[in-house]
Structures are given as structure tokens and as C-alpha cells.
């Protein structure tokens, strides 16, 4: 089932505001009513092994009455830190796990993606009449400014 017009309009607005060409999946993620909002080429921090990758998140068909998921993903899932994080002595991105089954097969060939658990909407309540996907995206990419430990 194609994404509802409200979500399509919100994604167009996000593309215009962010400068990235965001798209939305034609299908929901199997077993859910979630659509994937994503761009295939998004800048990534210098400390990552790739400087560009896919970036996206999942939003319900009931958007904006229902909030987007409090997480986002990047792909490919092989992205690591260029140098090991000294506190964890690891090149894995902190609290970002390779997650199969996060996307429908029509998006990035259903590849496993690195999902960041990102609890920003715990601190700010999603308000359907106030917040937009631009707010959500802005919150998500602020993760890149955070230290790689915690």
C-alpha cells in the first residue's frame, strides 16, 4: 500500500529543508504499519570509515498523529570508526547495531542496516501539530555530534 499523502508531503518538505533527496518506501515493513523514509547518499562524520551512506528512519502511516520511531539508521552496516574509540577500545559505532529485517526488501535490497537507538523523543514529546520530519531529522543527525561512548 503506497504511503499516505500526508507522509509524502512531509517527506517532500524534508527534502527541501535538508538539501538531501529523501524518498519513502512504497511498502510497509513486514509485520508493521511503518514506512521507511530514507536518502541513499547522506554525509557522514569524518570519524566513520565511509564519508557518505544511506540514512533514514521509519514513520507510521498515521503520521503525524503517530510519531516517527525514536531511532534512525545508516547503511551499509559495515561502517566503523576509523580509529578505535579509546574508552571502549572498539571501532564499532556506539549503540548502533547491524539489524536485519529493519527495511522492506524494496529498500536497499532489504539490507541489514546500522540502527541507532536514539532516545531524543523521551525528552521532548512529539506534538503532531508542531513537529515535523524536519525536526525529527535534525534530532537524528545531532547524534553525529555526540561522543562515541556513553
Amino acid at each position, binding site marked *: 500500500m503506497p504511503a499516505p499523502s500526508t507522509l509524502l508531503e512531509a517527506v517532500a518538505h524534508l527534502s527541501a529543508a535538508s538539501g538531501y533527496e529523501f524518498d519513502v518506501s512504497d511498502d510497509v515493513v513486514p509485520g508493521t504499519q511503518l514506512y521507511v523514509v530514507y536518502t541513499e547518499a547522506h554525509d557522514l562524520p569524518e570519524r566513520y570509515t565511509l564519508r557518505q551512506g544511506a540514512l533514514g528512519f*521509519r514513520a507510521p502511516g*498515521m503520521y503525524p498523529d*503517530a*510519531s516517527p520511531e525514536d531511532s534512525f539508521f545508516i547503511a551499509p552496516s559495515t561502517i566503523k570508526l576509523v580509529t578505535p574509540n579509546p574508552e571502549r577500545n572498539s571501532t564499532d559505532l556506539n549503540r548502533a547495531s547491524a*539489524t536485519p*529485517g529493519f527495511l522492506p526488501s524494496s529498500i536497499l535490497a532489504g539490507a541489514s542496516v546500522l540502527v541507532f537507538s536514539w532516545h531524543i523523543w523521551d525528552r521532548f514529546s512529539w506534538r503532531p501539530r508542531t513537529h515535523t520530519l524536519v525536526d525529527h531529522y535534525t534530532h537524528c543527525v545531532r547524534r553525529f555530534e555526540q561522543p562515541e561512548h556513553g
Partner: protein
Amino acid sequence: MVEAQPVDRVLPVGHLRLEVQLACESQSWEAIGERLRLAAPNEACTFVLTRPSVGHSRATVLLGQPVWPEPGEVTPTPYSLDIKGDYISRVMDRAIDEGPLTGIALIHTHPATEFGAGRGVFSQRDDWYEDRLFPTLSLGRSHALFASIVLGSEPSDVDARVWWRTDQLWVQPAQTIRLVSKTLRFLETPHSTWADHADPDIMDRSTRLWGAEGRRRLQNLRIGVVGAGGTGSLVLASAAMMGIGKIRAWDPDVIQKTNLNRLLGATRDDVGKKKIEVLRDFAVKIATAKPFEFEAIDRIGTSAESLEQLKDCDVIFSCVDKLAPRVPLNDLAYAHLIPTLDMGSWIHEDGGRVDDFMTHAGLLAPGMPCARCTQKLSPGALKREAQGVQRDAERRAGYGLNLTSEGDEIEPSVLPLNLTGVGLAMLQFMQLVMQLTPRTPRNLTMRMPLWDLDESDLDALSDCGCVNDVGLGDACNIRPVVPDPVPPSP
């Protein structure tokens, strides 16, 4: 209005819908009537902006903000009003600014004079004037509905009619004016089709509580019941036995064996039959209203077509078991001035042991906080529902845990809990329609294991649709919700 003129043609009476009605938020209506009647013994008038609420068999003109005349824009006498062109132009400009669905209603009074009470019926002079006024007001506004109302000197003495434009201008008498807030009242015009119960003796015990007027109200109400499962079947049976004359109910499901422990009116023989048809047959058997009408619709109650049919109802019962369909039902209550009783039960089990359960019922109507404001319908809860088998995925995914939660997602449902919620809803319905007590409660929640009946103390949020979208009608974008069958997880 202006000096008497000959009526040179009959009004262009047309047919917009089987029923036409006006509706207004109660306090606004009272305030307009009070201010206009202050001018007695002179006539008085005001224009009011309107929005349409066009349903399947009923069209309703929703009365909104008044645009009062400035000094000198209306010259009144006890028998006439001279409305200046400047006032009409100003009101038309306001309507244009508000959008293509905004119409205009003219409300004027027939006050008491030395000859006696003023009658709430249109005079020949009113006909003559309005037949000239409304072609101007409606020019180029074929998406809007227009109305005229005359108030007699008694508050319940009123007449009204609805004007609209296609290739020409049409008018149809309105049958009732619906006044909506924490309570629901109706003013009947001379064109009302309401009739009393045909066999009132059967209603004796309840008539002793709410009187013949209450019985008449129930007999003529049309309620919409969305969902005919564990709660909906109880609502349908209660409504039929209480003497409600018209029921329209939706449910697309067929009866399964697992429904029989809580589906009132269904038996083992009904397994495999359509729920709504079985419950219709049961309701017809137990109904006390006379005549009694039940429309069974085997479709989801929040599809686009169903939402249009819901606009024909005076009160809606939201008996759905998911959160998403509550969104349009919640919004309909405020935008279309159709009070909605929302109810639901929830049981939480942990490792096979029930540790928390509750049932709630709340009235959604102008002046009451909506389901969003009382946190019965939160963005987070809607998101969790949309996550389906991946509920709370964002909590798990970042830590490398399995995306799919365990269990089959089917929650427990039991009759006593549903009975309690429906009981609370039916009491609130009685309060809404009969005003049995001075106060209408907010959302009521029975919580277990505390055995605590809690009334919400949450207020409406100032930026919520339940404050800002009241009476917007078809100008408010209410999206249908037709849940897809959730595709199986891989």
C-alpha cells in the same frame, strides 16, 4: 427587514439531503440569542460564518463565529431591519478570507411586541428579503452552505432553512438545530419530523427518570456505533433496550468461536456469520423504540464512505479495539459537532500473570478535552501500535536484540471489564442527552488492581484540534483509517 414588499415568487425549494440540520456549540448559541434579544422590542440580527458537514443522508450547517454589525450598519424597528450594504460586504469579505467552504448565516429575531409574543417563523417579508440577499451572499461560493434563522421571543421557538448554490440558488427547510457541548440539546423547527414513541407504556420505568421529553429525544436520535465486538455488542444491546430509535453500526468481521464469550447476542450457531447482521437481528428483537431502525454496515467504520455516513449521526460510540481508528472518530466529534463516547479496555499480563488492567469511557465533545489531551491517544502509543510485531523496535535494535517481540499480539478481552466500560459510557450518554446531573464528568477510568474509579483532571491543550477545529466541518481534513491486514513477518 426593510419595508413590506410583495412576494413576487415562491422560494426556490430544493433537495440537498433527506435531512437538513443546523448545529452550533451551545455556549455560542446562547450568547448570540441573548445579545440579539437584548434589542427587544426591536428586531435584531447578526451574520454568522458557517461550515458545511455533508453526510450521506443529512447535511448540517455548522454555525461558527458571529460577525456583529458595527454601529449604523443595521437600522432596527419592532417590525423590520434595514441591513446596510457595507455590513453585507464586510461579512462576504470575511467569508472569502476564511476559505471556499465558509458560508454565511443570517440570524434575526421576531421579538415580543405590544401584540404578544414574537413567533419564530419566517414572515413573507423575510422570504422576500432573503430571496434577494442569498443570491448575493452565495455568489461564486458553491462549496459553502448558507442558512437563515429566525428566533421567536421564546428561546425554543425557532425556524431555520439552508441555502446552497448549484447552477442556481436553492433552499430547504431545516428540521432541527443541534446544540452541542457537554450536553446535547435539540431545537425543533416547524419542519421537524420528530415523533413521540408509538407505544410509550413500554418505556414507563425510564420515562419516570427522564420524562416524556427524554423519551422523545431517544426515540428520534440516530446513534452511530463503530465496532461491534466485545464493547460494541454491549452498546448495541443497551441502546436498543433504552429506546433509541435509529442505530447505524459498522463492523466488517465474521463471528469466530473465540468471540462467543463476550459478543452479546451471538450464539454457537452464528459462527461464520457476519457480526453486524447477527447483532442487528438481535437488536431488532430486543428494541423498545417504536419505530426502530437499524442499519447494519459490514465495513470498517472509519473508511472514507463510513466517515461520511457518520456525519448523519447525532452521537457516536467508538467501540474499536485499535488506536488508529480513534483518531478520525476523535476529530469528528469536534470538527463536526457530533459528541462521541470513546471507550476501551486494556489488560497487561506479564509472564502469564495479569498485573494491571483498566477500562475507560470518556465523552469527546466541544468543551471537553479530547482523547489526545487526556492521553488516551498519544503519538507514542499510535507509533507502538504501528510497530506491530516489531513493537519497541527502537529500544531493541540499537542493542542488537531481536526486532520481533514474542507472542501473537492478541490481547486478552473479558466480558466483565467490557461491561464496566460500557456501563460508564452509557451513564455518560444519559448525562449527555438527558442532563440528569449538574456536572458532566471527564474521562472515567476504572483501574485495577486498585479498584479505583478515576476521573481525568487533564485540560484541553490550547494548540489542540479540540480547541481550534471546533465546528470546522468539512473544512477540517479528517483522514480515513482503513487498517491493512498486517503482512506477515518474514
